[in-house]
């Protein structure tokens, strides 16, 4: 039967263009930081789980092979996950499974992307030049969300400003836009109507890592653990007649399965902080509804009322989110580890006071892959 597992170490690189650093150097930096945080070394690691978005982004096929040495994996198992944009969170979940299954006591999990060594929009367009990229896929769905929910157009700008202001408190964030404002977002070039340039994520290089360990080994690491209370993944087809791309069934099912596993009955009240995968501003209200946090049609009201701000009642993306840093393959894991940071009390200037339960989330493909986890400062928190 599944045994408890906790995050005991977290490591991140700075997210930015990092041409002077090799991919090996990037992943090793994050891995060593996570091990340092856990006060462990590579010798304490039983298995390594690595994830990234498609190999075409850097032109290195099956990178676990050439990175095994840099990650101290020689002589050990190394497992490579790829589930499109959700991969970072899926990788965290696969790593947790390795511990929860009882097979491995301590697992190092690392995700990365080095977008400056490739052409992300080309790769995200299925390797076709002139492709529409991710924004081109999502913009029509966002317009449909706006039509259905009657959301005012400033909602997208509000999310963009909020996340960029949060990013100013996060030293690892790629974008530190000191002068960000609603006016700046609104006046930035229109990329895919209704998404302006400043409502879109950047292209970042970077790596993120975590050390996960079993209950009986948690005490080896001095910093507070983040207990993995539960996780869920769901997938549906990219497209079929009648597919609801606004209120996506796989997303709803994923959230429902997760809350049921953890014992959450009122996510808005019982979750203290959420890191949602929001690469384009409008996905904040869409996911608040699409993951059963807000009623259908009411997600944008949470944004509008400031509920999702750092000092709101349901803070979202206190780290600055994907809108402020997007090393694609790592972005989902960053959501999971920032959730862990919140419940460990190690989120620094963007800490939510007293956060006890936090949600990490990622999605990918044509908004068809979902991966989520909930972490807590307590192994068995009381929900009321």
């Amino acid at each position, binding site marked *: 039967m599944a045994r408890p597992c906790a995050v005991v170490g977290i490591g991140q690189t700075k997210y930015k263009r990092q041409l002077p650093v090799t991919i090996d150097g990037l992943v090793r930096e994050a891995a060593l930081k996570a091990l340092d945080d856990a006060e462990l070394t590579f010798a304490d690691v039983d298995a390594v789980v690595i994830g990234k978005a498609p190999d*075409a982004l850097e*032109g*290195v096929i*099956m990178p676990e*092979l050439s990175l095994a040495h840099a990650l101290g994996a020689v002589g*050990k198992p190394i497992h490579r996950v790829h589930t499109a944009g959700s991969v970072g969170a899926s990788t965290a979940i696969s790593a947790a499974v*390795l511990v929860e299954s009882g097979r491995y006591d301590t697992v190092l999990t690392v995700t990365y992307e080095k977008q400056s060594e490739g052409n992300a929009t080309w790769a995200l367009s299925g*390797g076709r030049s002139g492709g529409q990229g991710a924004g081109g896929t999502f913009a029509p769905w966002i317009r449909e969300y706006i039509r259905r929910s009657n959301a005012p157009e400033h909602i997208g700008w509000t999310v963009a400003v909020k996340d960029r202001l949060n990013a100013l408190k996060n030293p690892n964030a790629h974008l530190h836009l000191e002068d960000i404002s609603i006016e700046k977002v609104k006046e930035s070039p229109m990329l895919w109507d209704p998404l302006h340039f400043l409502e879109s994520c950047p292209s970042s290089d970077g790596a993120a890592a975590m050390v996960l360990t079993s209950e009986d080994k948690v005490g080896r690491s001095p910093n507070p653990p983040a207990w993995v209370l539960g996780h869920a993944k769901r997938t549906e087809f*990219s497209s079929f007649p009648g597919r609801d791309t606004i209120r996506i069934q796989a997303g709803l099912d994923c959230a429902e399965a997760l809350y049921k596993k953890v014992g959450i009955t009122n996510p808005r009240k019982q979750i203290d902080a959420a890191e949602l995968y929001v690469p384009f501003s409008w996905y904040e209200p869409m996911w608040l509804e699409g993951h059963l946090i807000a009623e259908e049609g009411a997600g944008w009201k949470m944004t509008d009322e400031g509920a999702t701000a750092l000092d709101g009642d349901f803070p979202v993306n206190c780290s600055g989110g994907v809108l402020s840093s997007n090393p694609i393959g790592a972005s989902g894991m960053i959501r999971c580890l920032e959730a862990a940071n919140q419940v460990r009390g190690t989120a620094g200037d963007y800490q939510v006071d007293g956060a006890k339960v936090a949600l990490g989330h990622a999605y990918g493909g044509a908004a068809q892959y979902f991966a989520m986890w909930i972490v807590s400062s307590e192994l068995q928190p009381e929900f009321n």
Partner: protein
Amino acid sequence: MAFSPGENDIAIVGVAQTDAHARFEGPEVVLIMECVNRLLSDAKIERDDVGFTIAGSCDYLSGMPFAFVSNVDGMGAWPPVYESHVEMDGAWALFEAWLRLQMGDIDVAMVVGSGKSSPCNAREVFHLQADPYVVAPLGIDPDAMAGIQAQALVNAGKASEADIADVVVRSRANASSNPHAQLTDAVSADELLAAPYDMAPLRAHDVSAKADGAAAMLIARRDRALELTDSPVWITGLDHRIESHHAGLRDLTDSPSTRLAATGAGAFDGDVDVAELHVLHAHEEIILRDALGLDDVAKVNPSGGPLAGDPVMATGLTRIIEVAKRIAGGDATRGIAHATSGAALQQNLVCVLEGGS
């Protein structure tokens, strides 16, 4: 003595594979659909009964990033499914599924491996496995690395060119009874040794027959497995290990990662009647036999192995299927299957399978 499963033991309850097509005139998703439909119908199980699905494939073979996304169409994902994907051979997808079932909350998992290598030049694609700064620019691909490894083996006196040819002779002969194999014509060692070198001392026939194909498997926890089949094949051990990609840091004439994985999987804890090895270059069988301690009793690659048909990304999972078929059919009681990834046997997985209920 027959294996006696505990509550948390996991068995293979159904398998399916396509032919190893030299060139399949259709998309990869059709190969998967063919395989999955047959798997579910043979096992008399509905899609809804599968608690977790995981696939292994490689985008680069199709020349399209996110190619695996389309593969979901062949596996089925409506209503939404609990699904995952590894960018590895399907054998590694099985590794994750096997551990996932041990958590106890779901009973049945489906594992798929698929690849369509015919649209590309596999050597050009797989040379991108090397590190991108130092080795890849030199253009050293896995076949070239295999030639270096085979030469090291010959130089060390651990094998002769005739020994390497014998591996091919036996593989082709064994493949004659495998309906899914690609190369089934009988060959003699003399005619093989007369062929010109490709990557000396390897010749073209020493390299696996790249193919398009898919393989799929259903695994279940003990109680569900016993409901689903009269001939469960228990996965009693599964482990995998990697070595450095720096060839200069390795003894290429040995495979310590295979030995470690075999130890971790418990392969040495009993007799082995049958072994299916992921042999992509003929000399590798000699290295693997040594690392796995396979004596003359064990049947090695009775299916013909990858030298007779290599559905890239499904080949490792197919090795496990081939052993499972022999155990389920009563031809063997305990067997091992091996899968590999990377150049010159860099990463190796060993799976131990046993019959019994």
